[in-house]
């Protein structure tokens, strides 16, 4: 393995770029696969590119055998999982550390300065930008979950508009069935189709009878995990 490969992987991670490194298990030669193109000494055909794409989507590295009998290891280096929380509210104080334990880089967004303070959110990235501006800067990708918790349409709605235009894998929005119904109505008026709006999980979280902020945070984290690991259940 070339020492430089490690720097290139670190740069890809910092830039949120997913990469697959294909290694020939006989020779040790490597090919860098990114954005559907391959560069390196290991021959990669369309079938292999498709396999790399699947491995990346499933976030599962694997060894495959090619038609000409070579064994290649497809090592997936996906960007870190991220959770963007809109609303530096009580539930966010529980959700942020739970998500961090589950491996997510957490950002809390709240333009109301007195909410998003380092005191209330130790070791979390805080931003007091408006949610749509914050999300535009953070560029949510397919490894990003977005949760809105403010209950305030002025803050939640711009965030949901940005989230729905992104590739994020999970969108959840806090609020009762009634709150959610009026939210859906506003989004329809804003021009979003019902398929798009159906991406939003509301009421948010798995149905585990959660009542306290920490329990609600667990229910949300459970739902995010299920959406990440069992994407086929999304349609259900």
């Amino acid at each position, binding site marked *: *393995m*070339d*020492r430089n490969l*490690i*720097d290139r*992987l*670190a740069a890809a*991670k910092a830039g949120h770029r997913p990469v697959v490194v294909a*290694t020939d*298990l006989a*020779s*040790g030669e490597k090919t860098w696969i990114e954005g559907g193109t391959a560069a390196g000494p290991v021959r990669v055909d369309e079938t292999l590119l498709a396999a790399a794409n699947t491995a990346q989507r499933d976030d*599962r*590295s*694997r*060894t495959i055998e090619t038609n000409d009998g070579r064994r290649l*290891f497809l*090592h*997936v*280096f996906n960007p870190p999982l991220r959770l963007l929380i809109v609303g530096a509210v009580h539930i966010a104080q529980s959700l942020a550390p739970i998500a961090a334990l589950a491996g997510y880089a957490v950002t809390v967004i709240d333009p109301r300065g007195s909410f998003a303070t380092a005191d209330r959110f130790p070791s979390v990235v805080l931003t007091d930008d408006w949610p749509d501006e914050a999300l535009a800067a953070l560029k949510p990708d397919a490894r990003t979950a977005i949760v809105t918790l403010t209950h305030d349409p002025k803050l939640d709605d711009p965030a949901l508009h940005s989230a729905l235009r992104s590739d994020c894998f999970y969108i959840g929005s806090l609020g009762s069935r009634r709150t959610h119904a009026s939210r859906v109505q506003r989004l329809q008026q804003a021009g979003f189709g019902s398929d798009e709006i159906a991406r939003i999980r509301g009421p948010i979280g798995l149905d585990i009878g959660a009542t306290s902020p920490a329990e609600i945070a667990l229910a949300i984290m459970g739902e995010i995990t299920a959406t990440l690991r069992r994407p086929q259940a999304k349609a259900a």
Partner: protein
Amino acid sequence: MAADAETLTLSSDEVLRRAASWRDAGKDVAIATVVNTWGSSPRPVGSQLAVSGAQEMIGSVSGGCIEGAVVAEAQDVIRSGAPRLLEFGVADEDAWAVGLACGGRVEVFVERLD
């Protein structure tokens, strides 16, 4: 050889980062990667262990049951520069003296960091 809790939970890129810093400090380094698993196995495919020429290690490719053997193989890989594909299974009488207590089987690819 026991792996402590920290080395067991290190992410792959953290293992590689430390391996790179060893290399930059002039040490010989080999990288071991789990490339295949069958049945139950303690560490998922893609898990990595970095081994130095001084037999230091960081990361893990199992719960600690095969690291010792991998570290020994890594010394040969560092000397020769030729990568090796190792296979470990439970009660593997012929090739390897160590096995996986969990009953699984793993393939580990060992290569030199140049």
